[in-house]
């Protein structure tokens, strides 16, 4: 199988301080992502999966344990990682091209090279004709594809996807799932995606990390060894789905805290301030 581990997450824990009280969000997370692998992290809301992505991308660096990318501990955002948020986060005052070009801002590429890379990536996400458009002129799916292009334009080693399809209707969702697969295969990109949709996880990934909440822990890791394209109605597909569901439901008993305020719901946007 795959030889090397590109991403190595070892004993990662994360605690926020909210109202002078510690709130444990992640506890002792372990898993690895191999080169060109598609890994999905699944779990109910509040299990810290988005936090985990923010740690990997480097937006939040105050954690215990190690997140190693090619053996190097992550301490800041870097060109080797791209991220697609659930909301596309395209800057509304820039055209699609300009938004995508931002991905190469930190590089020393010549303007011509930037232009070419932008065109190539827009082509990859099938938005070649919409380079001049503004975000508000795009549909939700198109905007998400533009965001993918922006994340890919700097040729990251790994692409992180934070529920990128969560806000889309089911038809667009199904279409984009195939697009993601196509981009994954064509671009040979390693992807780590967070989702709460089991079918989506089974359909896309090579490996599913199942998490439980409060505090976020890894409950189990389910490999998906089905060939692509996968058939959602096939028996083996459903079998994998059942396994994931079983590990979600039947794992060690879930522990619910009595006090609702200790729920670690920390809005993404706010997190920075507590660090």
């Amino acid at each position, binding site marked *: 199988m795959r030889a090397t581990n590109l991403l190595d997450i070892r004993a990662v824990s994360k605690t926020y301080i909210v*109202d002078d009280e510690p709130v444990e969000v992640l506890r002792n997370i372990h898993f690895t992502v191999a080169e060109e692998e598609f890994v999905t992290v699944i779990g109910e809301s509040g299990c810290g999966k988005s936090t985990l992505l923010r740690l990997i991308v480097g937006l939040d660096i105050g954690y215990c344990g190690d997140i190693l990318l090619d053996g190097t501990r992550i301490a800041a955002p870097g060109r080797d990682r791209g991220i697609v948020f659930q909301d596309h986060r395209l800057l509304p005052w820039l055209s699609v091209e300009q938004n995508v070009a931002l991905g190469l801002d930190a590089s020393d590429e010549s303007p011509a090279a930037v232009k070419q890379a932008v065109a190539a990536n827009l082509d990859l996400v099938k938005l070649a004709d919409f380079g001049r458009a503004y975000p508000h002129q795009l549909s939700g799916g198109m905007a998400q594809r533009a965001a993918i292009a922006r994340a890919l334009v700097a040729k990251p080693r790994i692409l992180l996807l934070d529920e990128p399809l969560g806000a889309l209707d089911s038809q667009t969702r199904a279409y984009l799932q195939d697009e993601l697969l196509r981009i994954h295969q064509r671009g040979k990109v390693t992807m780590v995606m967070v989702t709460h949709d089991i079918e989506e996880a089974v359909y896309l990934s090579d490996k599913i990390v199942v998490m439980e909440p409060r505090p976020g822990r890894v409950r189990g890791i389910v490999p998906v060894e089905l060939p692509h394209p996968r058939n959602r109605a096939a028996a083996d597909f459903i079998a994998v789905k059942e396994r994931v569901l079983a590990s979600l439901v039947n794992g060690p008993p879930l522990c619910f805290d009595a006090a609702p305020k200790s729920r670690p719901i920390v809005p993404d946007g*706010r997190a920075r301030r507590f660090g």
Partner: protein
Amino acid sequence: MSRISLTVGRPSIASRRGMAIPCVLILGWIVVGSTGLVDRHFLVPFQRVVTVPFLDPDGRTVWLGLAASLARMVAGFAIGAGAGALLGFAMGLSRFGNRLIGPSFTAVRQVTVFAWIPLLTAWFGNGEEAKLVFVALAALFPMALNTQQGLRDVPVAYRELASVLRLSPRRRFTRVLLPSALPSIVVGIEIALISAWIGTVGAEYAMGFGRGVGIFLVQGREQFRMDIVIVGVIALAVVGYLINATFRSLLARWVPWRGNPS
């Protein structure tokens, strides 16, 4: 925005830092003033400004002036804000009213309120009438504008809700339109109060005659008493500040659903 309780229990870091510049300035003032490096006509010693409102016979008139100005402001504000609210409701509630009054109101509003002074003095002289009319005018425009905008910007969703619930016009007004417009109206009241205060002092300053902080200022200038002028300006600023501060605290009580003004 940074309302996270990082500083709970020791709220003074931010406020201590805020006091730094004013303290340094006052200290500099005292030092420079006592060394006499700068012409004393320009830079009155700090101690003098502190004592003038209490010890100097001319300076003491600032209290009477302040009382007169405040009374004038309150009266003018009551008239102007009342009329402004009526205008605002007329424009904000009825399309007929908005079409009838709106364009004229917008046009007249463009005339800087101070530009009314020569006309008002010609019409009403320099006495109390002209000043009251001017103060009322200063309060009227922001009040009417904010009332109208608040009503105009009531979200369509709420209007539709009111229609769906088949609310009576009165309930529609008291339960939907007014509460939704209230934050804007309250801001209108605040701006109207501040404008009324500036208008009061401005009217006194430009029209003269009688008592008031503005007249105190003019007299200080005519007698070339810098200490008096500074006391007058401070009185002007303090009242403006107090209006603002009181209002911020009232706001939270009156419009609890508005959240914290930031």
